[in-house]
């Protein structure tokens, strides 16, 4: 899984940092904060390994 960019997303009426936008294998994907989601699990694995940083929301 080639993850090239990850950023928190904020939307009207929702708590800050409760969604993630990521570019995975060249496709922009909205990823839920669910450890059972394979994209979220891989993002967090790479973050914990120091290989990836989640950018702040705009």
């Amino acid at each position, binding site marked *: 899984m080639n993850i090239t960019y990850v950023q928190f997303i904020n*939307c009207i009426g929702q708590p800050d940092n409760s969604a993630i936008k990521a570019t995975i294998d060249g*496709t922009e994907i*909205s990823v*839920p904060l*669910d450890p*059972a989601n394979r*994209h979220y699990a891989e993002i967090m694995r790479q973050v914990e390994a120091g290989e990836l940083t989640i950018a702040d929301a705009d």
Partner: protein
Amino acid sequence: MSKAAELAALIGSQTALSNRNLIINGAMQVAQRGTSTASISSGDTYPSVDRFMLRVSSAGTWTNSQSTDAPAGFSSSLKMDCTTADASLAADDNVQIQYRFEGQDLQQLNFGSASAKSLTLSFWVKATKTGTNIVVLYQDDGNDFIAKSYTVDSADTWEYKTITFSGNTLASITNDNTRGLIVQFFLAAGSNFQSGTLATSWAGYVQGNEAVGQVNHADSTSNNFYITGVQLEVGETATPFEHRSYGDELARCQRYLQQFTGAGSTRAPMGVAASSTQVNCTTMYTQPMRAAPSVSTSGTWKFNGNTTVTMTSCTIYQAAQTSCLLLCGTTSGMTAGYAYEWFCDTGSSGFIRLDAEL
């Protein structure tokens, strides 16, 4: 021998008459994402046929498709067409077709105990390149694996194969919705996968013992590899393939992938504007999904109400296994509190995809 006795002998004492096949979409009937994806040279992706993941790690370039070339009794197969060859694999290069199971669907195997049950894999294969091929069962819980070989005897000819694996007494499979077991069909494997001795009994994972003897289906652009009729069942006997209806298979696949498309004027859920540039769409899934899904989009999607605006982003919130809230950014012009229809303006090629694959 009576017909009943023949049937009992055929099925085996540990196997149910129905729902024997643990594999979903083993006849390769369902391809929600589309029937073909070309130019695959890296990554873990689900390119065409549902539930069958492709791993390509620098071992040629491939087109993965749902093919109508199939043995008698089947209408479809999964086809791998090598379009750029790699006749000299680097050490870590490999190509695998994988099928991934939820742990909660495998509890009947009793893995991790002395009474762990055997599994039998059967499938039809047709390949240009003859020779030895490797199939691996990898168990995440315990990091254990077992590998067996089969031989493609004749080029470009459908052949039926059966492989029996012993049960894993070393580690149990966690009873939840995460990955519990992987079936790995190797198509290519570099030297790091072949440096040892093939692990024909369950053992802790050792890469060098994983795919010893695997031929390289990536060594020529003339090579094709087809597979269908994939069945994994409890016991030591391969029974006839358990055919299920397209509707049954589609519903099972939708636990892992659902999508709204522009095909046939299909509509996505209604939404309510939260501002002039955001519409909130409560989305109920067709089937409960394995986990909260990721969302991706393709094509031009629009919202139509007192005005028509174009969607510019789609973000998933409050995601659960039965529903989610999709918050869509748009070009300006909507009125907060108004309802809007959500539709695709680019025909069948557009999609809103919900992905809960393993």
